[in-house]
């Protein structure tokens, strides 16, 4: 399928295949991207008038965000289960688990849509306060990551995966493992966003 070396087999020097090393390097750059924004959050909070972040934070919907957290955690476990199903050569289960992962991701977006529109209906925008500015920036960037991940997941849930499964089972399992690493990272970011934006 491809002439790119070390896609599946491990490189002797790193002990890893290039696909996995590549996605980890990408995730390292993502840590710095979100890290910069977390740092911005800390400084804005330190510089804000006392109680300002708490006041605006109290306008957020904690039950909705808690539900979204549970959705992402569920999607993470179904993502890893879809990979495990491929390793066990259970293609139907793979499709089912990946389908649930996609549904959880879509449900997350729907909840986020209602959260955002509820704020807009009350006249709350990113320009309303410093807190809302960083809230919409952080969660908006996270939503973009969810959308990007969903596009990849839908691709691997489509008929394309049937074709890949018939042609090269190991390649599909490798692709799902790599995609899963990204998806778990998106979950990981939310695990930190949730308390600092909604609960503190």
């Amino acid at each position, binding site marked *: 399928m491809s002439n790119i070396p070390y896609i599946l087999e491990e490189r002797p020097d*790193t*002990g*890893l295949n290039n696909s*996995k*090393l590549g996605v*980890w*390097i990408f995730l*390292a750059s993502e*840590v*710095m991207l979100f*890290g*910069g924004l*977390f*740092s911005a959050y*800390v*400084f804005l909070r*330190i510089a804000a008038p006392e109680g300002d972040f*708490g006041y605006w934070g109290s306008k957020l919907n*904690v039950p909705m965000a*808690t539900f979204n*957290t*549970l959705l992402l*955690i*569920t999607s*993470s*476990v179904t*993502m*890893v*289960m879809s990979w*495990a199903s491929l*390793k*066990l050569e259970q293609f139907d289960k793979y499709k089912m688990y990946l389908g649930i992962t996609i549904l959880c991701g879509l449900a997350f977006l729907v909840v986020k849509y209602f959260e955002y529109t509820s704020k807009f209906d009350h006249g709350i925008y990113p320009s309303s306060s410093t807190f809302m500015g960083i809230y919409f920036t952080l969660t908006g960037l996270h939503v973009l990551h969810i959308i990007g991940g969903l596009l990849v997941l839908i691709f691997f849930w489509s008929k394309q995966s049937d074709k890949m499964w018939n042609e090269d089972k190991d390649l599909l399992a490798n692709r799902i*493992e790599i995609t*899963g*690493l990204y998806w*778990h*990272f998106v*979950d*990981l970011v939310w*695990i*930190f966003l*949730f*308390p*600092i934006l909604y*609960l*503190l």
Partner: protein
Amino acid sequence: MAGNSKESIEHHIKIYINVFISLAVLTVVTVAVSYLEVSFIEAFFIAITVATIKGSLVLCYFMHLISERQAIIWLLVTTLVAFLILLFIPLISLTDQVGGW
């Protein structure tokens, strides 16, 4: 990830379920703790500690870091150091008294 035999994968599936339950319970704990009457500093450390435990579970088990190669561990350690520099070095500016001199 090391150990991709059928038995190994089936063993891992049980671990994934346990991690999922732990993450769900810790999420409820995070929300419950936020209703406690504690100072901001205490609430901050509790929330970050619980989030760090949850994040570690995702990293170690869902992302298989616990059985991953050294190359990735060192890549992440380097990233963590860079992240901490990004986060904390600017805090030095808090001691900057230029405006008050």
